[in-house]
């Protein structure tokens, strides 16, 4: 108890709270600019944390990231440009709501869900960190391979329309992921001698291209078709959002659990959590046909999941120094610098500091609600700007955003090619979401498959030789086989009934 009291004293300091407020504004701002990720926001903070005490330094990063992950939803919902990769899963759904005039509902829901998800994740972090970390480091390449397969099966669920076209789209994404130096043998694939291509196709410019540039082209091809419907403001925030949340309280819980579990696993972060949560939401929804038309249900799941994942990633980082995602990789560096070397010992030797970190997590997610509403109110005005003015400005933002990720015009080329590709795909009924999922999961799928094959000396049985891997494998196979069996049964029965 003493250490918790001490922790409160450490956090409830005017300087710490000031740093948190400033970081919150910074995080909201960076997250809402396409091309700038939460990771980048954290990296930009590093030089400032050099000169801070441990608690404000950690508080700055925690707050910035929590805000940035939510803020990524804002341009996603308003302009169909996901601000961070974690928003990509439900960007289309939120944008569809905006076009129906429900921008504020969409953003309000995703804000409150982000906060709830963040708090759920923090609670998991604070209560079970050492135990869960033991579970997380049991995962080897066999388990990760099945996890990636599980993620891929989401592609079929999240794509609306023709299943065949969804598959094509997924395969295109997987192909794009193979470009660059291959992880297993170090051989350059499809690079045609270009050094830039050796690095592979950066995910962020590809994502901006597929969502934003294709949208710009659609407007230019048919201006006037796109002016958003008049927006209905939410008069009573708590009434509007509260009723939605109470209808979907199970979704909130499910999203939180998925987010925390996926987040804990090193190498699978908030963005993968959001995809899986969104797919689960559609799969188990009572009204799956409404997905894709601006239905709020998926937002509840995925919005909760990505913020819960952020806290989950800290668990292996704090306990074993293994980064759960790229943000915690930065955090580990800061922890070392502040003498809080990650490991079980820090929980015993410096409990007040660890507890202070947990308190900061709760505070940051609580502060998300008022600050987030402010951000929504301000950013909503963007919808009143006439499209003919807005579209060119969006284009330039995308240019600078895709440049910023690596500071090279190659990012802009990637954005252009992917944008044109997505435009052609969408005009022909090919969904783009599976392509993006393919790019996200392609490398994870391939590298873990290859590693597993080397470890098992080329024997497929290796994939079922460990308890967690076998369980995951059976789940994946069932998910894939059941629809096939159903289809076959239907085909066999058809002649008889006809």
């Amino acid at each position: 108890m003493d250490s918790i009291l001490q922790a409160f004293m450490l956090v409830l300091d005017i300087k710490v709270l000031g740093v948190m407020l400033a970081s919150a504004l910074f995080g909201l701002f960076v997250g809402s600019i396409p091309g700038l990720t939460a990771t980048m926001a954290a990296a930009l903070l590093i030089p400032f944390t050099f000169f801070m005490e441990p608690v404000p330094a950690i508080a700055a990063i925690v707050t910035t990231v929590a805000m940035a992950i939510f803020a990524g939803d804002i341009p996603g919902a308003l302009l169909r440009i996901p601000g961070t990769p974690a928003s990509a899963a439900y960007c289309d759904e939120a944008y569809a709501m905006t076009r129906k005039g429900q921008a504020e509902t969409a953003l309000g829901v995703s804000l409150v869900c982000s906060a709830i998800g963040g708090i759920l994740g923090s609670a998991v972090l604070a209560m079970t960190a050492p135990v869960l970390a033991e579970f997380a480091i049991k995962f080897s390449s066999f388990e990760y391979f099945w996890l990636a397969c599980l993620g891929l099966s989401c592609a079929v669920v999240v794509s609306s329309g023709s299943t065949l076209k969804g598959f094509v789209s997924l395969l295109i994404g997987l192909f794009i992921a193979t470009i660059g130096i291959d992880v297993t043998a170090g051989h350059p694939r499809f690079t045609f001698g270009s050094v830039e291509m050796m690095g592979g196709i950066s995910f962020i410019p590809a994502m901006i291209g597929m969502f934003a540039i294709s949208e710009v082209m659609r407007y230019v091809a048919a201006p006037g078709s796109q002016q958003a419907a008049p927006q209905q403001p939410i008069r009573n925030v708590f009434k509007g959002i509260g009723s939605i949340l109470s209808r979907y309280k199970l979704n909130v819980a499910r999203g939180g659990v998925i987010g925390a579990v996926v987040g804990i696993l090193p190498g699978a972060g908030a963005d993968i959590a959001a995809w899986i949560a969104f797919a689960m939401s559609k799969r188990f929804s009572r009204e799956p046909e409404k997905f894709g038309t601006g239905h709020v249900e998926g937002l509840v799941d995925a919005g909760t999941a990505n913020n819960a994942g952020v806290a989950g990633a800290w668990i292996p980082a704090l306990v074993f120094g293994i980064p759960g995602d790229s943000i915690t990789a930065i955090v580990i560096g800061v922890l070392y610098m502040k003498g809080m070397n990650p490991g079980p010992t820090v929980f015993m030797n410096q409990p007040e500091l660890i507890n202070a970190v947990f308190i900061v997590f709760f505070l940051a997610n609580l502060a998300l609600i008022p600050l987030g509403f402010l951000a929504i109110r301000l950013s909503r005005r963007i919808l009143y700007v006439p499209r003919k003015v807005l579209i060119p400005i969006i284009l330039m933002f995308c240019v600078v955003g895709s440049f910023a990720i690596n500071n090279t015009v190659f990012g802009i080329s990637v954005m252009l090619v992917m944008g044109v590709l997505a435009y052609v795909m969408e005009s022909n009924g090919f969904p783009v979401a599976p392509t993006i999922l393919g790019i996200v999961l392609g490398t994870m799928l391939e590298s873990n498959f290859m590693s597993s094959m080397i470890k098992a000396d080329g024997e497929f049985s290796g994939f079922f030789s460990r308890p967690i891997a076998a369980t995951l494998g059976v789940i994946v196979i069932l998910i894939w086989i059941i629809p096939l069996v159903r289809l076959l049964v239907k085909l066999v029965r058809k002649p008889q009934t006809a």
Partner: protein
Amino acid sequence: MYKKVMKSFGKSVIGGSIAALMLAGSMTSAMAAWPERPVTLIVPWSAGGGTDATGRMIGSLLEKELGQPFNVVNRTGGSGVVGHSAIANAKPDGYTVGVITVEIGMMHWAGLTELTGADYTPIALYNADASSLLVRADSPWESAQDLIDAVKADPGAHKSSGTGQGGIWHLALAGMLNSADISPDASPWVPSQGAAPGLQELVSEGVDIVTCSIVEASALVDAGKVKALALMNDVRLDAYPDVPTLKEDAGLDWQMAAWRGIGGPKDMPEEVVTTLTAALEKVWNSAEFQEFMNGRGFGLVWKSGDDFATWMSDSDASLGEVMQAVGMAK
């Protein structure tokens, strides 16, 4: 400093009119000595890793020293080729420099690029970390000799990891086996995307051996999940006095270290190199830098100018020799 950023952020949101005023105010015509505008510091590895952490530390300390921001830019991918090419191909005006890592002496042997250490203006070497030999804490092996005997007795049974195929830590293990007269294939290498995922494989019983710097494994060593058998260095480390060198343990002369230094494109102006080297030496000697490096367990080494160039060509030659011996060179 933080406030400064937030303040300028606030202003830029207020509107274009104020922004225009600020821009007008920021125009200058006077030419002063280098650096008169922000310098880009290219890091060829991703944010969060050791190279990135040291690069950012150096960047912020150089900013304090020289009064201009040193913006860290991560140019990742292609096993380091992309970032190293970006440094070598930058305009040699002193406004783009970068962190050069040990891989510069490996990539050209693997046939990935033509670049070598000779394509840079060497500024200074600031860090070198010896490879260590790591196994699970419950492993029956108590010394490097045990491990070598086990690999020799049962080739192919004990898998290893720590980085990608043909990466520096892969070379460390292959070279060690080679110097013990065992085929480098006797312990098949499982490629991973860096030391942390490799260590995860070790702890989850996916592989039996990991080679990487002891810094990267320190949390797991402290947690009692992983034990270090030996260090591929000529002396023991102060932070780990109980870990013997490979020479002490198994009588092998094999040594391998990953190193990092600052360099720029070829033909940088003489006065820029002088100013930068002096500033960097001050940074390296500063209490902040020493404390940071020691805190994380990074090895501190200092070699500037021609010494650094010699170091790079020596490293290049010995890496090439090993890569040829173990069949990784093209």
